[in-house]
């Protein structure tokens, strides 16, 4: 099971689900990380955390552990 935190730079993938047990899961959904959406890892900070994803026409930065609950298909 691959998650968004394992993407390489420039790699694209489709979201299959968001882990419900994560405390940030609702906010991730609200901001647009929903199943079926395509995301791409565009940038990350010097420490590889947070990571910036292209999603729904914009860039969203999230922490690595938040990217971990975005399950890819």
């Amino acid at each position, binding site marked *: 099971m691959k998650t968004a935190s394992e993407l390489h730079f420039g790699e694209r993938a489709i979201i299959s689900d968001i882990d419900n047990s994560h405390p940030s899961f609702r*906010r991730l*959904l609200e901001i647009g990380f929903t199943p*079926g959406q395509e995301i791409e890892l565009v940038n990350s900070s*010097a420490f590889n955390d947070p990571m*910036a994803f292209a999603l*729904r*026409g*914009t860039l*969203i930065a*999230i922490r690595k552990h938040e990217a971990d609950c975005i399950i890819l298909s």
Partner: protein
Amino acid sequence: MNTASLEKLHLITLVGPPNSGKTTLFNQLSGKNFKTVNYPGSTVEYSTCKIQSKFGIQADVLDSPGIISLNPNSPDEEVSINSLYNHPELGSPHLVIATADASQISRHLLLAKQLIESGFNVIVAITMNDILANRGYEVDENKLSEQLGCGVVKVDGRSGIGIDKLLSCVKPKLSADADENTSHPFKAFENISKEKLLAMYSDIERIERNVIVPINYVSQPNIKKANEKLKILNPTLKYGSNRPDERTLKIDSYLLSRRLGLLFFFLIMAFTFTSIFWLAHPFMELVDEFFGYLSNSASGLLGNTWYSDLIADGIISGTGSVLVFLPQILILFLILGLLEDTGYLARGAMLIDKPLSKIGLNGKSFVPMLSGFACAIPAMLAARTISNKRERLLTIFIIPLMSCSARLPVYALLIAFLTPPDKAWLGGIALAGIYISSILGSLIVAAFINKFNKKIINTLDSSSFILELPAYRVPKIKNVIRNSFESAKQYIYRAGPIILVLSIAIWLLTYFPNHTPELNTDGLTHDEVVQMVKAERLSTSYAAALGKFIQPVMSPLGMDWRIGVSLIAAFAAREVFVSSLAMIFKVTDEDNLQSSILFAMKDAVNEETGKPLFTVPTIIGLIVFFIFAMQCISTVAVSKKETGGWRIPILQVVIFTATAYVFSFITVNLLVLVGF
């Protein structure tokens, strides 16, 4: 006038996600006439205005802080949502204008859709159409309006295109039936289920597929030009309409690059802080000379009387010695505004989230901390965007350590004392050093509290960092300048009265009770007599009595009661330190205020030891004191309000001031020991 004009005006609330162009639209509607109001019981600020008369609609407009959904996630979002449902003073809106960014419409329609489902009377304003057009697409307004079941208008808040059309849609909605609408109870959206959210999104995605259409360039009159445009656009076309702004991605490949990102970040921050000193210098000289001239003419005009002294020394010099620093404050606000408007601030937050999270803070602490360099009060309010309570409290805790603009007057004076006037660049370096120490100091304090003391901040909460990085935009200079002036004005309103009152109070303390001392003045020139009278009056004044009481505390620092009195005055507001020194050393003799304070400081002798009072060790000791000490009453009050109790503000005062004293003591005595 008929009675209708006395009735309450209709209320239009602007609602939208962050970075959706909401405030730009507000500026178009308000023109120059907006005011800032507080949400009652809190300090969240809202702008309200009447729609510009040229548009011919009578209504109030309320600009609320950005929200992502109607389900709040942080304290500031909660206030925004509450005020949207029912603002305690303004009531419920008759009409909601929801802004949505065309280039990321599927995200921004979520809020619009929730507003419609909640029963609000909604018009959707589509912004940022130029970014979507760069990708070769546009929004079909009519189709979107049909699918959402509400009015949809494309606007460009920057140029004002579309505003007329938006208002022609607003007009009929504000008719009689609008009043009925506000009486409906609105459905709340708290704790919306995952299934419901997903269903909403899939509905929005279906709408998006229908309303985003490729721009039909062939229908344009100039076909050749259109074809060229299409060629340029082709590379992005294959990604579809959901590709982020190309130019933004290109800029980010440098500014957020893994190797150079942090370097650029530090360069930008270094530039910000050095320019505060460099750019402001010529303007400060102007203000300085102006007040020097004013004070001189006042005392010349009023002669040798007590009220002449009060006006020239107390009021004009006192306020002047602080207003001198207005240019620096203005430039700081200006640069912060520019950084925010371009979209870089969010990136800064992302770049330092990891290091900050190591010491219990959050990337979102970055903007409040940065604002702390202007003033701690708006900075503490800005901390509301941090959803995690523990991180928010810790951010508020360390904000007073950020070198706020009220310290600038103090540092500028003390640095000017240390550096020769022909080497201004040395002052810049010294100031940079002070800023760096204040940042390091605050980080060490945060790390310390985070590690060892769960008693100071004892809430556990899951930490998170989710932040949109907005597309880079050329900042709208006019708005940035206007906001900077507005902030500077607020600063004067807030600090001005305190400075004035304290200046007069300190003048009174230094002038009475022995205001016309009897001295043996035989054989002395007029100037010598004036100096003697001043010295005698001061050394027998109330201020001296108060100062001698605290002398035992000041002696270990190599300072005397006069600095002590100024430090006490500085607890009301830091910049008062400068006006207080000016008052105690009675400097109005020269044309230039700051240089005359410096002149008096160089002459001052420690009354206890007989040695010069202001030496390299005492000046550096004072700088160290100001880096740490918590000296601002307004900050204490806001800290109490924002943290919901006295515990944190009291701890701040005790810990920071004790640290300031101890470090200052160590610095002064070490420097004396090594021979300064």
